[in-house]
């Protein structure tokens, strides 16, 4: 055949093809919003295309370098430093539209169908008034019948509930934000700054322009929250490519970071990082490679000496030499030495020990040791250092889901909900009460296990009602994300008289609720702010609410306000509220007040930000703070540059905690030098040591339990979910990724497993079935099952979704970090 189409015909056909393609996005309008998913970095700017009140497509930010793909080929150093760059979003956010319009959305208030069991998923639609009345009546009944400590919250304390419980004068919360609690504790104990402040800041420009060596310790920044969307990976790549900055990745996984961003990969046994950190400290102290002048000026001397004595073996007879460490962490002594010399001469080194490293039993140690090591090297406050984690500009954020910061209403003074348990231990707080009642468990031991952090004179809780969900995505799917055995949590729910849940989507956790309240999506459906927090740059972007919410979904704060109204103190809880019809206007007034407070703070920095009304008129209302500064930011400017004392008792960096040294402090509530409660330190810190030491991890690679469960499980975050949000997005799971168990090829071979085989993964608290990803990319003896998979339980209680939470449990360690690791066994499922 092989004929040609007449030229004219061909041109006509091509025009037709073009027109057909262009038809899809005709007559659309465009609005900008910030992505407010709780990835930890977040705040990416989304350009939303709309037609007929629906989102038709999302495009990336185009405020800078419009139409340029390779931005660094055109960006100036000034633009790189001031973050005048596109805030490109991550793969999860590319799937936003499918997520928003998912058939899985909860549209109406629901009540568990009479006669059905929790978890069966049978619900009937009720009105908002009915739902709120049922909840309010039950709260009153619980308070009256069972006392003020009968209403509890799960995983992560909910700041919207504090004033509500406060005015109601009943209700208990847990403590802990899970993600970086070990670092928050380290920061509070060592510097006196509560671990949610922004003193130890750095930004990515600092790393690009000033770091002489980049060490990514346990950090896969191409996948986790500070990953693709947040420039972190890109900046590391630019540092390596344009500045020649060497990059070392220390990780049991040959992660994408190890493969793409690092010059060299050093595998380390998970949970033993502390041994290597101590050996590095041993060399720098023994060989006088540390910064004596810095230590003299800024580090509390007695604590430093205690730590040095421990490291050198003066106090315990065991010098923490590289030869000592290699047997524990499996990094050869020679490598540790070489690493240390490179580290010590690279001034400063950006040593970023990821939060994941401390998300293990006794992870408090590595969080403190990494920061202490950076301190004695004098790297704190220098360009490109890292202390406790990336936090950009030492500036506040506009966070309407933390209404405590800028009160939405009057603040109750009589009652503050006590923190009676580590938030992820809420199920144990419920279940272990039986043993306390039977005398099998003492109250002291009960409180030790659940991580009591409250007045020791209060009685134990008497949980009857669980108030779940809110104010952010990760908190609404506790059975999946709660870093504690799923089956224990289900059992605990079943002990309670009522479970209330807030949900945008029908999650497995919502399925166990008695009442489900539908909430609006915070990126697209109701006005709020998105911030870039841990991404290394600082900005606040307004999310105007670009589409109407489906069904009867309501904003979180409307729900709390209306519930407060039912309980008789609505106007006190929310002083901005006038009428339902005026909700949007009232809420905007509140956001304006929040913005103005932020603007006032910035005035103290001599920054003149636009007025609220002017701000809202911008095409893309967003404050990029880095634009206002000519230098990258460094941490602890007040102390290290201006000479003010650290807010610790000694005024210096304290490597040794005085509280942890004193046995008489055990069991009490703990306060810092300024009288603020240390919110991540339970009354009883169990065997946490005053200085950071090596303590073998419970359920780590040296635990006798390996006889039965020989593989160490890591539940790292993936890139396609923010916690569990996005699991049900068909553009993601099954399309661009498979949710599978990473297992080393040697471990697979001896078990007769090949890639794609379904395997059973089990611990002493649960079992999951997933396909195996057989790979050389993880060291033997270690497996990874990504965090946030939704449970799909069969009648035997086996999970076919592949949720690592099914397998996690630890009742022996100190409680600050929520442990995201454990020990498991893996077998091939035959047939």
């Amino acid at each position, binding site marked *: 055949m092989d004929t040609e189409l007449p030229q004219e015909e061909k041109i006509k056909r091509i025009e037709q093809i073009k027109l057909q393609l262009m038809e899809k996005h005709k007559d659309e309008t465009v609005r900008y919003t910030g992505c407010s998913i709780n990835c930890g970095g977040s705040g990416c700017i989304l350009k939303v295309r709309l037609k007929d009140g629906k989102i038709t*497509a999302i495009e990336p930010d185009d405020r800078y370098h419009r139409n340029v793909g*390779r931005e660094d080929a055109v960006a100036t150093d000034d633009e790189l430093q001031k973050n005048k760059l596109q805030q490109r979003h991550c793969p999860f956010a590319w799937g936003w539209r499918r997520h928003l319009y998912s058939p899985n959305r909860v549209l109406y208030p629901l009540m568990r169908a009479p006669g059905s069991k929790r978890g069966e998923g049978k619900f009937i639609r009720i009105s908002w008034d009915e739902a709120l009345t049922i909840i309010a009546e039950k709260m009153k009944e619980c308070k009256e019948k069972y006392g003020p400590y009968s209403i509890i919250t799960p995983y992560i304390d909910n700041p919207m509930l504090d004033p509500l419980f406060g005015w109601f004068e009943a209700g208990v919360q847990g403590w802990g934000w899970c993600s970086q609690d070990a670092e928050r504790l380290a920061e509070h104990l060592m510097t006196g700054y509560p671990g949610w402040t922004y003193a130890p800041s750095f930004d990515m420009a600092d790393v690009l322009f000033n770091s002489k060596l980049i060490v990514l310790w346990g950090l896969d920044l191409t996948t986790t929250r500070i990953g693709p969307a947040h420039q972190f990976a890109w900046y590391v790549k630019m540092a390596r*490519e344009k500045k020649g900055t060497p990059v070392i990745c220390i990780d049991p996984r040959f992660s994408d970071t190890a493969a*793409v961003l690092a010059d060299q990969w050093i595998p380390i046994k998970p949970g033993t990082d502390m041994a290597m950190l101590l050996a590095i400290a041993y060399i720098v102290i023994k060989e006088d490679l540390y910064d004596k002048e810095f230590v003299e000026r800024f580090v509390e001397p007695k604590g430093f000496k205690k730590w040095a004595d421990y490291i050198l073996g003066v106090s315990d007879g065991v010098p923490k030499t590289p030869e000592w460490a290699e047997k524990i962490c499996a990094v050869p002594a020679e490598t540790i030495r070489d690493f240390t010399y490179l580290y010590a001469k690279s001034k400063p080194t950006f040593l970023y020990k990821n939060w994941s490293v401390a998300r293990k039993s006794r992870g408090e140690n590595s969080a403190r040791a990494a920061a202490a090591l950076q301190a004695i090297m004098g790297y704190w406050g220098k360009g490109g250092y890292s202390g406790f984690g990336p936090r950009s500009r030492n500036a506040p954020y506009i966070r309407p889901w933390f209404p405590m910061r800028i009160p939405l209403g009057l603040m109750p003074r009589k009652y503050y909900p006590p923190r009676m348990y580590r938030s992820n231990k809420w199920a144990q707080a419920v279940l272990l009460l039986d043993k306390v009642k039977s005398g099998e468990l003492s109250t002291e031991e009960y409180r030790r296990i659940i991580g009591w952090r409250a007045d020791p004179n209060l009685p134990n809780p008497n949980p009857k009602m669980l108030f779940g969900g809110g104010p952010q995505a990760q908190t609404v799917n506790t059975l999946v994300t709660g870093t504690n055995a799923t089956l224990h949590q289900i059992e605990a729910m079943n002990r309670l008289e009522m479970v209330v849940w807030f949900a945008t989507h029908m999650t497995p956790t919502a399925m166990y609720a008695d009442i489900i309240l539908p909430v609006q999506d915070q990126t697209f459906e109701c006005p709020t702010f998105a911030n870039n927090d841990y991404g290394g740059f600082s900005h606040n972007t307004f999310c105007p609410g670009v589409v109407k919410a489906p069904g009867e979904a309501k904003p979180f704060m409307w729900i709390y306000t209306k519930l407060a109204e039912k309980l008789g103190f609505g106007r006190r809880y929310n002083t901005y509220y006038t009428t339902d019809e005026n909700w949007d206007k009232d809420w905007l007034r509140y956001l304006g007040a929040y913005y103005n407070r932020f603007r006032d703070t910035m005035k103290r920095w001599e920054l003149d930000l636009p007025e609220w009304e002017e701000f809202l008129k911008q095409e893309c209302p967003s404050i990029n703070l880095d634009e206002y500064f000519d230098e990258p930011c460094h941490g602890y400017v007040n102390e290290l540059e201006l000479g003010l004392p650290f807010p610790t008792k000694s005024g210096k960096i304290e490597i040794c905690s005085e509280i942890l040294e004193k046995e008489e402090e055990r069991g009490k509530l703990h306060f810092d030098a300024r009288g603020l409660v240390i919110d991540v330190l339970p009354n009883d810190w169990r065997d946490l040591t005053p200085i950071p030491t090596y303590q073998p991890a419970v359920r780590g690679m040296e635990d006798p339990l390996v006889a039965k469960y020989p593989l160490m499980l890591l539940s790292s975050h993936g890139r396609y979910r923010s916690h569990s949000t996005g699991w049900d997005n068909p553009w993601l799971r*099954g399309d661009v990724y498979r949710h599978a168990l990473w297992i080393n090829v040697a471990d697979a071979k001896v078990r007769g497993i090949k890639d794609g085989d379904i395997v059973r993964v089990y611990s002493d608290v649960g079992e999951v079935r997933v396909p195996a990803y057989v790979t050389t990319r993880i060291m033997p003896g270690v497996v990874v099952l990504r965090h946030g998979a939704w449970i799909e339980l069969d009648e035997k209680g086996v999970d076919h979704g592949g949720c690592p939470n099914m397998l996690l449990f630890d009742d022996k360690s100190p409680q600050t970090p929520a442990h995201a690791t454990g020990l498991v066994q893996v077998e091939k499922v035959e047939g």
Partner: protein
Amino acid sequence: MPQYGFLFDQSRCTGCHACSIACKEWYDLPPGPLKYMRVFEWEKGAFPDIKLFHLAINCYHCENPVCIDECKKYVPGGAIYKEDKYGAVLIDPERCNPIKYQCKRACYEACPYGSIVFASDDPGEKAQKCTMCIDRLEQNLAPICVLSCSLRALEFGPLDELKKKFGTLQQLEDLPSPEQTKPAVVFIPPTPKRQLIKYDAEKALELWQQRGPYAPPGLPKVFERKEDVTNPPREIIGRNRLVLKPKNVQELMYYTANDE
């Protein structure tokens, strides 16, 4: 004739799939095999020299598009055209008709990159592929994939300009030779690893095998045979090679998905 093309920087690609999802978002493509942008990940080597490759690959709108030649053998005048303004290779959905012309996916067979995709394994499915975002180009917007990459690994522009800026490399490890089809693409290869500090892999593996000094005696070793780590059975490893031209939908989905 002008020829626009793409830059793909393999030294930056982390295999995150943002580009492929961005493409599906813009064209509102359903979940499944209609991936105009495919992202592959494959591993080679063994501890300690593991090699991981990523490839985000669309249609390269070749200067010598063999798909067009093949198509014309079955369809009078052909159902694929090379347009003149950008050099885009476009499939005409109205003229593509595999049942009528019994072409047996000749275009797909001819393309060395496997860049043509089908909605299912049904032999009646029409061929589809990357359009170069010609609808966006006509509105002065760059292709969506190029704007989606967090690592800024992609660029689009006149091919000769891209060559001037980013070099003339047109072949990467495991990819076909560019000679036959003259693809409108330039590549940047992976950055070589640098050994900054000594690392004795044999000793490390020896240490790794032991449970550690704090473990009680008698516990099982961490793993049994060192050879299984250093010389692993390749056939049980997932995505142990690049399969640019999968046999069917199932294979395509397997090779174009990662494990998070």
